[in-house]
């Protein structure tokens, strides 16, 4: 019982502290298929604070985001992290993405990923494990716009995959 209680209290921590900051661990991935360019374009919005927290824990405790130093090193870390946590399968085939870079806006990092040479999409599957290693109640929102059909999903560590299928 005590253990359970402590688990609850830990969960609670991130809910109730820091009154004016976001108390909502969430990332948003906007995925768009641009058929004329044969390209899947992905923009991920992540709170700077969450990402910094993660990179410090995983790679380098000295890192500070958005301070112009070490940005290329930071890009490598982000690429490394995203590559290990986010997987795309298109038409049942695992597809690698290019990490094009990131930009900062207020308290958010925008990460840009692209999958090239996608001539058509019949099935699209994303596995997103972002931040499940650090935040218990992380939610990853996925918004897809593929073949002119819009869908949206909320992924958690219990349900970390989203799939869209299209009629041939």
């Amino acid at each position: 019982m005590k253990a359970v209680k402590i688990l609850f209290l830990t969960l609670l921590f991130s809910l109730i502290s820091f009154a004016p900051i976001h108390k909502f661990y969430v990332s948003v991935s906007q995925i768009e298929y641009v058929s004329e360019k044969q390209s899947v374009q992905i923009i991920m919005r992540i709170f700077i604070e969450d990402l910094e927290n993660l990179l410090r824990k995983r790679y380098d405790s000295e890192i500070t985001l958005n301070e112009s130093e070490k940005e290329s090193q930071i890009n490598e870390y982000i690429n490394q992290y995203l590559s290990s946590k986010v997987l795309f399968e298109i038409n049942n085939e695992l597809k690698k993405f290019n990490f094009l870079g990131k930009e900062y806006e207020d308290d958010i990092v925008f990460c840009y990923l692209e999958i090239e040479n996608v001539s058509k999409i019949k099935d699209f599957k994303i596995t997103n494990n972002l931040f499940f290693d650090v935040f218990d109640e992380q939610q990853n929102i996925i918004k897809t716009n593929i073949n002119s059909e819009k869908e949206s999903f909320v992924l958690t560590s219990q349900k970390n995959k989203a799939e869209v299928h299209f009629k041939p």
Partner: protein
Amino acid sequence: MKKLIHYCLAILFISAGLSAQEIVKPERQSGHKNENKFKELYDEFATPNMFRTGSGAPGPGYYQQQADYKMDIELDDVNSKLSGYETITYTNNSPDELKYLWVQLDQNMRAPDSKTPLIESTFTEQAQSPSDFVKKYMKDQLERGFHIEKVTDTNGKSLPHMINGTMMRVELPKSMNTGGKFSFNVQWWYNINNHVEEGGRSGFEYFSDTDNKIYVMAQFYPRMAVYNDVEGWQNAQFFGRDEFALPFGNYEVNITVPADHVLDGTGRLMNRKEVFTKQMMTRFEKAKKSYDEPVVIVTQAEAEAAEKLKSTKAKTWKFYAENVRDFGWASSRKFIWDMMAVKIGDKDVMAVSLYPPEANPLWGDWSSKTVASTLISYSRMTFDYPYHKAISASAPMGMEYPMICYNFGRPDKNGTISKRTRYGMMGVIIHEVGHNFFPMIVNSDERQWTWMDEGLNTFVQYVAQGDFGAKYPDALALGDTEFPSRRGPASKIVPYMSGNQDYIAPIMSKGLNTHQFGNNAYGKPATALNILRETIMGRELFDYSFREYAQRWKFKHPTPEDFFRTMEDASAMDLDWYWRGWFYTTDYTDIGLKDVKRLYVSSKPNQAAIKIAFDEKKSIDDLEPMVYFVEEGSDEYNTSMKNNDPLQNSTTLKEYLMDNFTEEERKTIESPKYFYNITFDKPGGLVMPIIVEYVYADGSKERVTYPAQIWRHNDREVSKALATQKEIVSIKIDPDLETADIDTSNNAWPKEIKQSKFEQFKSKN
């Protein structure tokens, strides 16, 4: 000129009206209720009464209860334990007879039988780090929650009481009538939580290097619940996230802590000479006259020395606070202490900061100045800050109490102060000091209506941040010209308002029950108020009304209706449609340019004329003379019309002018040359003004705002007929992004082909 335009426009309207009447409905429609977005909020608002009037002001029967406290508190630093003995004197100003009193025991939110964890949905992670596992399942901790030792009357006789979660009901020996007073004593203690590890809005932070703690204390004593005309006894339990509702009263508080602790809190320090050294007294006298720079009362060197020595003696700090709704205090031997004076009206107020060496140099440079600047901005927007001091204490959280608040933001361990730390620290100080106004003084029920304090406060914070950046350009990061605000500007709320409807709630929701607390209770209401100020009302009307609200309800308990009504009462603006859309729904703004049609004047009877003739059963030749318009690109249009003057194209018009105006008059008449029918559509549910920028062929621009009421007859689509001297080459809706329009791809004519955000980034890099 004017006359002629009106004539032409009138004809345009008539033809538009005719086509609308043409639509024949084959079946009889069923009736409907009034679902007009401009319908008054009579169904949603409580009926005005003797307590709260229709104007939004307190009514002749308005009352509020009073709770006065006398407390002796003792801190056991070694065991992180707090104990106290308090006497509460409760005054019943209500017209009601009270049989019992309710007291809030907020610490019970952490008690073993707390329902807080039970209302959260949880699950076990499939993969966990060993350190998380240990923290979650294996680490033990002391039991939390209040231990109520006794509840007695003034003669020491035990009073029957019953604890229901975070509330305690105390039975009165006999019912209290109006004006009655009742005093009772409570003796209590609890184990203080480590707020960094366990969370919480108060508690201690542990520093392992010197084995020291910083205590930032609040909700540490049994506090009276609010009894009022709206709710009776406050009955919403404390689950941790939603904050508080408290009556005003006077506090006499004696706090005993280790002798080397530096302590400050709500109220006047009554025994300064006993607890200050001579040197501190001299520095304090100097600080009272220092308006530009803070004066250090306890230096960093003194704090660092105290950290190591650790006195075993105790010292008692005595405070008296008048007309406050709560009491908070911060204490540590790690504290550096500085103060400066700030003129508010004709009074001097002290801006005070408490922070450990770890917070320097950031805090020494900016904390007290930020406090001072905040008091000036908020006093301008509301009323002169009525208390004699405002304290900012350093703790990794952000939380507010009367006269004192706890704020995060310290340099990294290696000494770097990132931009985010810097702006975060200044922003949180402005925000928490601002809470002195909402809800510490304008005392709304935080637990029920989170937006009333967080939203209003975040809105004024936005204004105050602008002031602060302008006053202290040195405070800004290199290259910045203004303080960056992420809440307030309309465009910043778009991602939230365009998001998944399953995860957003109307502002008029209880904070506890919302998914996105930050956007729901802070971001959206702050933005809604900013848009109301800048776009709907204008600063003059808004600021007057907002101040009126703050002044009417300072040291009182307002409800949402009191705010809504006052804003209308003081501005002569019926804003029910705005409250309804922005506060009672999750609708969003999306207004588009559906169509732009150019028209030409023609003397040949067109299809419209044929219809009129048919309807009136006349031949075309028998119709009254008319000016006809032909749409560009229609069957009746021919390119020769394009270059002719409207007068050349219409004999009717020429004749009318000849018959009705003298030659002199005709010379001064200038006829419009260009005619347009512009159709706006509204995919979004919110009604908002249509702000349009017309760009003419000569490069000149004209801004026209069609008030929101343009949508009152048709919520989906409206049109404007325009007659101009110059050709319109482009049109843009909401050019300055001030309405939070979630889709701007339909805002321009001709349609702007915008590069996507992704393509923009790709081509840049």
